[in-house]
């Protein structure tokens, strides 16, 4: 929760039409901020403007524009901003990112504690935990499949790895049997997400699961990590395959 006093205001300027993996950039940035537990963020759409390319973009009806300026603003503590700024700059692509010292006179009130996840990508060895989340393929969160949103949220919080499995038959909290009738048309299967990381990081992620999963089962078990390797951006190729099946029960 933000406290009155010094803070940082971050403003990101984008073009409405710019996309990141097929999704509007502003929407993936907003999801990222949410997953990382940012206190609040606002997206505003401009009616006219120009950016680095010096093209004037306006909402003139004659050329229906999908390049209107978009502005995302949020206010957070200096540490939180520093922790996510690198990733934000990468996500903003050609857009402009501005930070500004600000002062909070009155903090917004929240009814519940927000999730606080330690983002450091730790090297894990030995004891770890596996978190399995059971849900239905039909479950949705903010207009997208819940399993996808959970994977994105785990990725945003640097959970070491997650795999989604589709069951061919199953039932869960709602007692409806899900059967994968046709290989090609079923979107109603039972799903299981399996994620491995340290107990602390998975427990820290749990408040996010609380917020996103309305119906389902989450199961924790202890595992021993035998090998954990991941490919750093410039590491040689033979360096890695995620040892994600170190399931020692």
């Amino acid at each position, binding site marked *: 929760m933000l406290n009155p006093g010094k803070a940082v205001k971050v403003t990101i300027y984008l073009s409405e039409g710019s996309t990141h993996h097929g999704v509007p950039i502003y929407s993936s940035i907003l999801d990222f901020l949410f997953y990382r537990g940012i206190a609040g963020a606002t997206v505003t759409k401009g009616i006219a403007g120009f950016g680095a390319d010096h093209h004037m973009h306006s909402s003139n009806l004659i050329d229906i524009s999908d390049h209107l300026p978009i502005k995302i603003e949020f206010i957070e503590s200096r540490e939180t901003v520093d922790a996510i700024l690198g990733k934000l700059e990468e996500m903003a692509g050609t857009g402009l990112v501005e930070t500004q010292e600000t002062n909070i006179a009155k903090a917004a009130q929240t009814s519940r504690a927000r999730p606080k996840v330690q983002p450091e990508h730790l090297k894990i060895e030995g004891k770890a935990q596996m978190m399995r989340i059971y849900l239905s393929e039909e479950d949705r969160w903010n207009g997208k499949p819940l399993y996808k949103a959970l994977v994105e949220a785990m990725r945003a919080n640097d959970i070491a790895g997650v795999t989604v499995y*589709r069951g061919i*038959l*199953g039932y869960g909290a709602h007692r409806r049997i899900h059967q994968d009738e046709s290989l090609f048309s079923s979107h109603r299967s039972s799903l299981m997400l399996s994620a491995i990381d340290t107990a602390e990081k998975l427990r820290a992620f749990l408040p996010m699961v609380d917020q996103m999963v309305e119906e389902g089962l989450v199961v924790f078990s202890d595992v021993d990590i035998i090998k954990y390797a991941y490919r750093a951006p410039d590491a040689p190729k033979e360096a890695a395959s995620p040892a994600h099946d170190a399931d020692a029960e």
Partner: protein
Amino acid sequence: MKEQFSGRMVRVHFGEDDRWQGKPLYEAIVARCKELDIAEVIVFRGIEGFGSGSRIRRSGHWTFSKDAPIQLSIIDTDEQIARLLPILGTMVEEGLVATSTVDAIRYRRSSASS
């Protein structure tokens, strides 16, 4: 609604062509679990594997082979799993049943959501 409990996970491994009273064994087990009101059951089909008897099982896409490896994952409290295990013992003729201890959280939609 959020409910925490400590329980057990059972994983049962066998082949897709294994049968119980004329129907696929995995369907029979899921139906039996439902009768016992077991909390969570999910069936996975593997793409390759081997188990007891060391026959390699494959889900051949082109041959329509039905002998893919099957894994059931069943989760509930210790008491519920204790009721289920003897039944699994009679139903699974050839296969592997493994259990492990888990901490579970169950989320349920309720009219008065917390």
